[in-house]
């Protein structure tokens, strides 16, 4: 019996399907630029492809095409250094495969492509890159896969494309493009050669997109959808409006694992996300490929007498707009907002939006690429506080501080376009617009008027800039320059231990390394039911790039509720009922940036050992910020482990040794089935402890998972006794002097003797408790 199997059976026999490390039966090396063609069976995938990248390579482009049937949904997943992990004996969980992909192209079409550059959090590095191709339709499909290495010194340049056709996908707002075809004759003006109003509008918008493209040098397709609408009339109206179509973040717990983004738990604009993903929005985020990255609307009435009287848009390229409104400058300004120049903090309710949150409140608990760089400076010698770290009241003060709101991104601080560059901090921070009386829409998301002549100032000026100016550096800081992002050098590999959230103390997990398997873990979630009674759930799976990625079982759960059937020869089951739903993910990467870890709750470790646990049990779901329980070292044997008996499964004894003044102590947790077969647990701490000591077992009266932690300490009652005779787990079981331990236990759930669990058996340590080092990415 494998050690993994011992671990599993010791608690609930859940890992019977485990057969050890997946065998790499057949791998196919791809040669750069040489397509391979193969058949993907219906509802299946092939993961055995790889290409070896060299140091001199600057780009890797991978294409997967459904031959002859581009409408068939095939997807492309890519990761470096280690293969995709799954159990080859079972159908694979597509979600688990997606959560292992470092890059992906997963549109709803059969034309997938992505490019990895030597930039970003997971840059192109020398080594082996693994590729998986997935077929989501119930028909065989022939596909062509090509991986191409490039050594070009220049990254690819893909100018922003402008959709003037109003092509929309299902669910999107309608798009009026008739004004782009207005046949009203006009004379060419200011370098715009159009001879109709529609032509001049098209030419001017294309020129605006060209100017932005030349400055930003996009490396992936970015699509600007331009529409016209009635945005008001008279002497006060909206000239134009724009947005990033969506905002994206990397949080595997909410089904949004995007490890290619520059930061975890941080919102980025659609076009910045696409740049970091190395592919277009539909391919990294799914869905049809006619979705725009940036949407812009212009007001149809401006060019009529109904809007602003005789004034109208000026479509020339030369900024000689006179009393009219320079269309290109308006277009660049609005598109720049859509590219990522915006904050996600409320400027308070308005007549148009009376339900908006109060001034200073955040629209999301997650950070965002723009606000992460904003600081509040209250005095000239104050380095400033991150705006997102302030409470609502202080953020409101910052937003109305006149000159205290600053943008402190790396590019802005060093930019030759920043007139303050060279001043010592905070004198080099770029001031943002923060008038004493908040100006909704302008406050925070624009430069201060003290930076005169800037495109992204709060008021349009006669200068009508056609360049991004300092906004270019802001965009670089909010995700447009992956070259500046620090690459991940290693992924966390947590040691076996107890992890808990101080805000939910009493609940927690034993996260345990399975010996003999590479980065494979067994998890016990000890918790309380709605009545505060102890119960536990279990899971197992690989840790991939610092993320615990268990696959769904046949019943669709990644977190199982153990069920022990008394009297059966094989008593260990899991709850397969349709009414049960259990899901879990643990992410040990950059947890400190997560909303769960940034809640300000006292006692958080605030170091790299934190993890975000996302769990679902039936209709309950939450994200908790876990940290390990750290205890003083022991002087004698470290008995910390999970113990069990391979011939008698369905329970386990967890032990945790730690040093105390009197010597060594131990915490014990017995996981056992109650009379109904439901998994329960009871505890004891023995201080000092020597093997063979006897102790009472206590049942803790806890509190439900989504309840606030009680003010008073949890109470407990004696429900049994235990006598653990433990042997040194560091002594290999194969050594001549190995001897199993022994455990005598009896425990009555809720003190009911008719539900007694009783054993007097030998036990052996089952998990790897040794220290581990993080996994280098090289």
């Amino acid at each position, binding site marked *: 019996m494998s050690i993994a199997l011992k671990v599993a059976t010791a608690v609930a026999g859940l890992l019977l399907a485990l057969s050890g490390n997946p065998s790499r039966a057949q791998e196919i090396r791809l040669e750069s630029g040489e397509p391979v063609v193969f058949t993907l069976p219906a509802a299946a*995938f092939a993961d055995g492809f790889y290409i070896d990248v060299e140091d001199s390579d600057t780009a890797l482009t991978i294409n997967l095409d459904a031959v002859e049937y581009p409408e068939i949904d095939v997807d492309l997943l890519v990761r470096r250094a280690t293969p995709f992990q799954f159990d080859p004996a079972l159908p694979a969980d597509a979600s688990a495969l997606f959560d292992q992909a470092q890059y992906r192209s997963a549109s709803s079409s059969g034309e997938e492509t992505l490019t990895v550059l030597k930039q970003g959090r997971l840059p192109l590095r020398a080594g082996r890159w693994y590729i998986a191709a997935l077929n989501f339709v119930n028909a065989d499909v022939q596909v062509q896969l090509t991986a191409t290495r490039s050594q070009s*010194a220049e990254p690819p340049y893909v100018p922003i494309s402008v959709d003037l056709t109003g092509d929309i996908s299902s669910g999107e707002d309608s798009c009026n493009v008739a004004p782009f075809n207005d046949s009203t004759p006009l004379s060419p003006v200011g370098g715009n050669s159009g001879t109709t109003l529609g032509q001049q509008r098209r030419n001017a918008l294309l020129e605006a997109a060209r100017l932005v493209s030349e400055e930003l040098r996009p490396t992936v397709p970015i699509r600007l959808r331009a529409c016209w609408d009635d945005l008001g009339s008279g002497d006060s109206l*909206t000239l134009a409006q724009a947005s990033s179509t969506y905002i994206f973040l990397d949080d595997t717990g*909410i089904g949004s694992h995007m490890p290619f983004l520059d930061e975890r738990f941080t919102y980025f604009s659609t076009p910045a996300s696409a740049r970091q993903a190395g592919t277009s929005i539909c391919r990294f985020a799914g869905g049809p490929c006619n979705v725009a990255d940036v949407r812009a609307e212009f007001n149809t009435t401006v060019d009529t007498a109904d809007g602003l009287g005789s004034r109208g848009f000026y479509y020339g390229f030369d900024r000689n707009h006179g009393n009219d409104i320079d269309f290109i400058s308006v277009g660049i300004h609005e598109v720049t907002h859509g590219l990522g120049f915006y904050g996600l903090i409320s400027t308070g309710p308005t007549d148009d939006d009376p339900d908006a949150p109060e001034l200073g409140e955040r629209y999301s608990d997650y950070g965002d690429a723009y606000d992460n760089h904003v600081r509040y400076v209250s005095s000239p010698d104050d380095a400033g506080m991150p705006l997102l770290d302030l409470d609502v009241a202080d953020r409101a003060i910052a937003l109305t501080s006149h000159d205290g709101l600053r943008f402190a991104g790396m590019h802005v601080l060093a930019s030759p376009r920043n007139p303050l560059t060279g001043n010592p901090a905070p004198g080099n921070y770029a001031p943002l617009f923060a008038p004493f009386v908040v100006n909704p829409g302008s406050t925070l998301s624009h430069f201060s008027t003290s930076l005169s002549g800037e495109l992204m100032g709060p008021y349009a000026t006669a200068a009508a800039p056609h360049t991004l100016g300092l906004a270019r550096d802001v965009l670089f800081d909010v995700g447009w320059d992956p070259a500046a992002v620090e690459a991940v050098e290693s992924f966390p590999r947590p040691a076996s231990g107890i992890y808990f959230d101080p805000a939910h103390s009493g609940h927690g997990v034993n996260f345990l390394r399975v010996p003999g398997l590479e980065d494979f873990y067994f998890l016990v979630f000890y918790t309380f039911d709605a009545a505060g009674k102890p119960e536990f759930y279990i899971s197992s799976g690989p840790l991939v790039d610092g993320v615990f990625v268990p696959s769904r079982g046949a019943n669709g759960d990644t977190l199982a509720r153990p069920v022990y059937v008394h009297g059966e020869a094989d008593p260990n089951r899991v709850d397969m009922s349709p009414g049960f739903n259990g899901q879990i993910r643990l992410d040990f990467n950059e947890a400190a940036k997560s909303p769960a870890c940034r809640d300000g709750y006292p006692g958080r470790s605030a170091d790299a050992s934190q993890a975000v646990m996302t769990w679902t049990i039936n209709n309950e*779901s939450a994200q908790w910020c876990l940290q390990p329980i750290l205890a003083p070292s022991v002087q004698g044997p470290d008995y910390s482990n999970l113990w069990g008996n391979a011939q008698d499964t369905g329970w386990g004894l967890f032990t945790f040794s730690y040093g105390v003044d009197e010597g060594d102590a131990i915490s014990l947790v017995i996981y056992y089935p109650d009379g109904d077969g439901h998994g329960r647990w009871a505890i004891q701490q023995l201080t000092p402890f020597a093997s063979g000591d006897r102790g009472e077992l206590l049942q803790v009266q806890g509190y439900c998972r989504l309840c606030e932690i009680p003010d008073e300490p949890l109470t407990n009652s004696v429900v049994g006794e235990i006598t653990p005779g433990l042997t040194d787990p560091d002594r290999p079981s194969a050594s001549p002097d190995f001897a199993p331990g022994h455990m005598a236990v009896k425990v009555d759930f809720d003190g009911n003797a008719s539900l007694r669990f009783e054993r007097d058996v030998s036990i052996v340590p089952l998990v790897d408790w040794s220290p581990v080092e993080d996994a280098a990415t090289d």
Partner: protein
Amino acid sequence: MLCLLWLATGLSCVPAAHAATDTMARPARHVAPATHALQRQPRKSAAAEVAKPAFAPRRHGPVLKLDAALEANGKLELRCDEDHSVVAPTAPGDRP
């Protein structure tokens, strides 16, 4: 070797310092990789289709507006406005 870059003098054809990708089409190689079944919908679901992983619900970015007002003195004032109403609240654990 492909000649990819011309020096500014235009006098000689030299290979790029970092040779760019050879984009000439190459014949496709037919292969037969090992393939594996994808898990169908969980047993407790009535459906029996292979499910593509559901991505998190999308959230729209804020709409930034540029407003114009014609003042009594004939001056045109332009200023921005912002609509965050399309940004949905966060729902941790909301894996569709």
